């Protein structure tokens, strides 16, 4: 059985995108180690409600590491100190008695704060709308086995497709660059034969939208890859660069 721990929580509070934010400090007592980080915040919120105060707002949904909704910057890491896991998969046994745990929202111009720890990631949707798809009409395709796809290609596409769109890459990047996210989607689609006809157009359209939305320029620090909860590789960024350059040279 895990032991209980007590610690200090420093949590960012901010009322709206334009408001001035600040840290609130809370003492948490006797939290069991098998409590997930978000459940720990639930406990805090229950306490706050009991005191008649407003609970801390944070994004969360599936709580099993796949929806990409949770988005906390904990002690200097997006999704906290664990690797290959989202915030909701982080358990309190990772922390020690007496720790100070600082919780901040994603900080990036592309992701303005909505309230407290909740940020607006609709920019990702807009990038997707610019070209993150294969143009196929409902009901129009041929038989699923008509085009053979070698297993290594399918597997590579799957690895790229495992991105959950949480935004940790942007949060981790000192340049606020969304390249890992964009490249994962472009790679998935451009690797597959079904996505090839639009490959170059897709790379251009998605990059142009990404730039327009104010994300930074990738300088290959690899922080995104290190913090990605799904271990998406920057080799996808290289592929995106390649396709983009190819597209521009063709023009």
């Amino acid at each position, binding site marked *: *059985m895990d032991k209980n721990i007590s610690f200090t929580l420093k949590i960012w509070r901010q009322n709206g995108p334009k408001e001035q934010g600040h840290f609130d400090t809370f003492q948490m007592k006797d939290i069991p*180690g*098998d*409590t*997930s980080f*978000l*459940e720990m915040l*639930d406990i805090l919120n*229950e306490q706050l*409600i009991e005191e008649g*105060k407003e*609970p801390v*707002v944070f994004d969360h*949904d*599936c*709580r*099993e590491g*796949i*929806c*990409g*909704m949770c988005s906390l910057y904990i002690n200097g890491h997006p999704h906290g100190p*664990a690797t290959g*896991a989202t915030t909701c*998969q982080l358990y309190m*046994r990772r922390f020690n008695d007496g720790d100070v745990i600082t919780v901040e929202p994603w900080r990036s111009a592309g992701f303005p704060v*909505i*309230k407290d720890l909740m940020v*607006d*990631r*609709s920019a990702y*949707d807009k990038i*997707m*709308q610019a*070209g*993150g*798809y*294969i*143009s*196929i009409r*409902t*009901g129009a*395709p*041929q*038989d*699923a*086995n008509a*085009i*053979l796809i*070698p*297993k290594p290609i399918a*597997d590579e*596409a*799957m690895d790229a*497709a495992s991105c*959950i*769109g949480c935004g940790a890459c942007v949060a981790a990047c000192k340049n606020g660059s969304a390249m890992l996210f964009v490249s994962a989607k472009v790679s*998935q*689609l451009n690797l597959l034969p*079904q*996505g090839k006809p639009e490959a170059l157009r897709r790379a251009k359209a998605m990059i142009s939208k990404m730039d327009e939305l104010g994300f930074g320029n990738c300088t290959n620090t690899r922080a995104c890859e290190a913090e990605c909860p799904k271990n998406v590789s920057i080799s996808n960024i290289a592929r995106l660069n390649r396709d983009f350059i190819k597209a521009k040279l063709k023009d």
Partner: protein
Amino acid sequence: MATKIIDSKIPEGPIAEKWTNYKAHQKLVNPANKRRLDIIVVGTGLAGASAAASLGEMGFRVFNFCIQDSPRRAHSIAAQGGINAAKNYQNDGDSIYRLFYDTVKGGDYRAREANVYRLAEVSNNIIDQCVAQGVPFAREYGGLLANRSFGGAQVSRTFYAKGQTGQQLLLGAYSALSRQVGAGTVKLYTRYEMEDVVIIDGRARGIIAKNLVTGKLERFAAHAVVIATGGYGNTYFLSTNAMACNCSAAMACYRKGAWFANPAYVQIHPTCIPVHGDKQSKLTLMSESLRNDGRIWVPKKLEDAKALQAGTKKGSDIPEEDRDYYLERRYPAFGNLVPRDVASRAAKERCDHGFGVNNTGLAVFLDFSESIERLGLDVVRQRYGNLFDMYEEITDVNPGELANEINGVKYYNPMMIYPAIHYTMGGIWVDYELQTSIKGLFAIGECNFSDHGANRLGASALMQGLADGYFVLPYTIQNYLADQITVPRFSTDLPEFAEAEKAVQAKIDHLMGIQGKRSVDSIHKELGHIMWEYVGMGRTEAGLKTALTKLKEIRKEFETNLFIPGKKEGMNVELDKAIRLNDFITMGELIAYDALNRNESCGGHFREEYQTEEGEAKRDDANYFYVSCWEYQGSDDKAPVLYKEPLVYEAIKVQTRNYKS
């Protein structure tokens, strides 16, 4: 009992030709008119996103609403195992009929035949569609699609993308949706929650939605409304559903007159990580595939169970001869691979007798010692490594770790599992066209009731969501809209809109005004306890009556002692949760009413009075071979009225499910 002629609009002809006939004779809307027709789609999961994308592409003007910050977060994303289709790529004798048959049988003969056949028929198109969208399904070295087998079938018909099939299918639908949003045919509203449906002259003509960021109520008008808002599993508080999953949209439709069908059919998944404490917020599912190589057991001796509960013994301390592999004992033919409902009930039965193995006494072991010894740890890890890691992250126990050796037999750490609420087969009643009992209001995906009967087979939920959204609704909704082409767009200033908004606002004001002492979650937890205790895996008449009484008390507590901090203006997460809880309580009552009415055991509904001598479910086809349709009576205090849609089986002979031999 009220009588009402229920027309489910099943087309004429032999089962295999019904859908073809329907499509050949249905009314269509020409392209010029499509532009003049608006459709609201609420929800962006597999069903909602695929429907919105398809309708937008066809030329309708679509408004699509999403409760999360992006359509990609919808809970369809969490489905792990796969999606069924009758492709017969494995040459193992699969066919549309076989998929149809397995689904009806798996549903314990409580599904509507014609709907299920259509589902099986379009299942193949789904795979084609998804592959064309760039969904990276698993492949064989030759480049062909790979398949795996799943519970309830004798063929390999499940397509998968690692353990993230739901995610990949949803991202496929999301990309199709994104394409339409980019093209301007679909207008997407994120962080919006539907609060009510607006009815004008008996037809659904719009919704009232709450902007969750600004807190404002907004009105939206359309020629038809489609809800694709998922199931009601969170009524039980703890479930494998995501935190935002709720039944408020369905309840709003129900309160406006849409019938709610078969609410008692709730699926309980046998392999979840057990509840670890009262602070827990949700349950995590471990893939059903674990049962292929894991053996489920509890101790034979009660004193061993007591020692496990007290923490003085570990699972690996108990030698082989003192272990009771109860599924293998009770179901020699299927063993650990019995369907979900059977496995779940068997676990509960053992725990009820005091053989539970964790501190709460509500867990059983899933043990890999035998398979690790037989196959080697490497092979077992190849198959289940990611699940082992996930289990270790959550519980701090590594199931692949050698823990003990007794008399030369090696024992590895067993996993602890327990059943949890996972999926709801019941939902808003729909006819063959997926139209509810309110004209112009459609329900698709998990939020309707139509295809799974009393129990859903693994890998069928994804199939149904996408079938409805891509291939069924876009056809059937035209049959309705063809009559609407002369109807101009509605103004949201109409009194019906004003009235609906006023009612929602009044509800919000009321909730904010209670100013009691208890948080939403504390009341929701209590609701969950009652539901799990009395309306869970094993139900009795007395228990259900108690539940109804207790639910009344919960409602009273909610109405008088609720506390919501903050203001009603702007973002208020607690307020949003309170609105949902209000509906969960109504939903809980509805489940209890239906469970009480259905004096038989079938699929996910198990009434302890109705079982065989061996403890198996006993159906009563003579008296309960119907779909229960519940109609709201104008107030949450009044009991709903039941209508029956008789089930007519033409193609399949109704039999008893047998997993023993």
